[in-house]
């Protein structure tokens, strides 16, 4: 199916996804999208089949700060899973930096996930028995980063989210906002092309939410590509771009 899709751009496949060093954040290069969805559908094979995504087209450029909003059951999570290479579309093509990931094998998709995507979850998903720093370091374990210097890089990531002073705390001793910041630091480690956040403020109070939004704004200004799934209008208001999804169909709300 991927072969029938048009090439996402005429540029040769030379763009490197290898961005090492915490300071070398990707700078917006408007020519080529980070994410390109073309006619993506995802159908679940129950009886009757459920069409969670229908012919979705989406372009996300470097430095974009996109909020995906929609009622529950509209396909938000499915879209996020497809974007995060956790799920593969049943039809259509998905390119990250011009590389077709919809056609990759599971192992290659796993590698692409490690290389290109940082995840932030509503439930934080921190390991309860590890310190904040160790939780952050976990991100490089499967991405093939050098063991040497991992600690320093993780510490730098914690500093970016303003939690270096909490590095030796167990998650149980951190507030919800702090836990989410640790999770964001973990997602930032390995310099992902795309930060995918699934209801990141779902478990946070309004103060923590506000502070997290400031962090997102700062990260976006630094050139990070952010995609946030949320049903919180306040959160969506911080985004530069809002995409609404209803019954598996995407529509642009604002640009």
């Amino acid at each position, binding site marked *: 199916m991927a072969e029938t899709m048009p090439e996402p751009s005429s540029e040769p496949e030379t763009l490197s996804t290898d961005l090492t060093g915490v300071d070398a954040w990707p700078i917006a290069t408007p020519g080529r999208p980070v994410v390109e969805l073309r006619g993506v559908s995802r159908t679940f094979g129950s009886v009757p089949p459920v069409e969670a995504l229908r012919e979705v087209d989406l372009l996300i450029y470097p430095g974009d700060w996109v909020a995906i909003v929609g009622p529950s059951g509209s396909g938000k999570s499915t879209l996020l899973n497809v974007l995060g290479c956790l799920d593969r579309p049943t039809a259509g093509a998905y390119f990250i930096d011009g590389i077709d990931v919809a056609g990759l094998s599971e192992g290659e998709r796993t590698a692409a996930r*490690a290389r290109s995507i940082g*995840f932030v*979850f509503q439930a934080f*998903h921190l390991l309860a028995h590890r310190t904040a720093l160790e939780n952050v370091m976990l991100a490089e*374990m499967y991405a093939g980063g050098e063991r040497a210097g991992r600690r320093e890089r993780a510490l730098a990531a914690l500093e970016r989210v303003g939690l270096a002073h909490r590095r030796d705390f167990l998650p149980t001793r951190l507030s919800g906002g702090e836990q989410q910041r640790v999770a964001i630091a973990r997602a930032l480690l390995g310099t992902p092309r795309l930060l995918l956040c699934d209801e990141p403020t779902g478990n946070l109070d309004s103060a923590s939410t506000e502070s997290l939004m400031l962090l997102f704004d700062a990260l976006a200004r630094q050139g990070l590509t952010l995609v946030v799934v949320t049903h919180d209008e306040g959160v969506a208001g911080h985004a530069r771009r809002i995409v609404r999804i209803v019954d598996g169909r995407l529509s642009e709300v604002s640009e």
Partner: protein
Amino acid sequence: MTARDLLSEAGAGLIARPARVALTVLGTVIGVAALVATLGLSKTAGSQIVGRFSAVAATDVVITPVPGALGGSRAATVIPWDAEARLSRLNGVAAAGTLSDVDVRGALVRSVPINDPLGQTEVQLPVKAASVGVWRAVRARLTAGRFPDAGHSARANRTVVLGRNAARRLGIQSLDQQPAIFIGDRLYQVSGLLSSVERQPSLLGSLTIPNGTARREFNLAAPGSVQIETDIGAVEVVVRQAPRALSPDAPELLRVAAPPDPETLRAGVESDLNALFLLLGAVSLLVGALGIANVTLVSVLERVGEIGLRRALGAARRHIAAQFLVESGVMGLLGGIVGTALGVLVVVAVSAGRTWTPVLDPWVPLAAPFVGGLIGLVSGTYPALRAAALEPVDALRAGT
């Protein structure tokens, strides 16, 4: 993911739940300990038996009539009076003689010189009848006097050899005053005092009279047993030939008690012990394996969220499987190490209690921990596959 990463992740997973790990490996600990203790104890006991297996025991053959084979009286007379002469002609017989219990019909024994009104002067002591060769065959030693010879027997002289303990009970310390004793109302001259025997220790507590004397005085019908000392290594030959020499027409009426081959004996002891306890050890290892499998499976279900997260961070299925396999393998290895230590302790403690020398094949404590590790790996396989089979999307949704 490097091997070091894998080990540290698995280690952290275990360290986070020390109590659970301890309980989980308990079955493996017991199983490995049982295995090590079994192998050690059977080896120790085997060596112990062979250690006791001196030249004395290895050349000891005793022949007795099969009790009641042809009805009481016939069976009792299978051994001829000239047994000693018949056996001495056989190759491999170093010494031989007959030894019989004499029925004195309740006669009491007392020593003559001392008439102590307070002390017990009359005692009941077993009386035996011996041929001349017995004394060499049991390797008897005297403190004083001499053994009766063939002449004493032929003349049915009333002469007696006192065992050490019998002499003490009769108050006889030496032969200086040529003591005599009464068996019933008949006076016997004490010709020798036994100090030690290496076989038939009951001689030390008995009075022993010559065969001829026993026949005349107590109507002894036939010798009760034959004691043989063989040459070293001649036991098999003697065992085969002696019954025919004694009773050519009916050798099957004689029972031969001979030392078993030491190698066979050791193997027998080891296999008897091993069969039972190795089975026990295997059962507890099986239980231990089930324990690890069960707990690892529960652990997988509990850590679905963690698995989802790792998959999201880029862990491949093999990384997840490897982590859980290493965790269960390390648990098994830990159980194996602790179990091995316990097993060795058991061997040493039992040996100390019995004053045995603990003997253990060196490969047993070296290999046993790996048996535990193998158990862990095998029992962790199914949970690890279950963990690896989880879809990251489902895992992330299910776990917190």
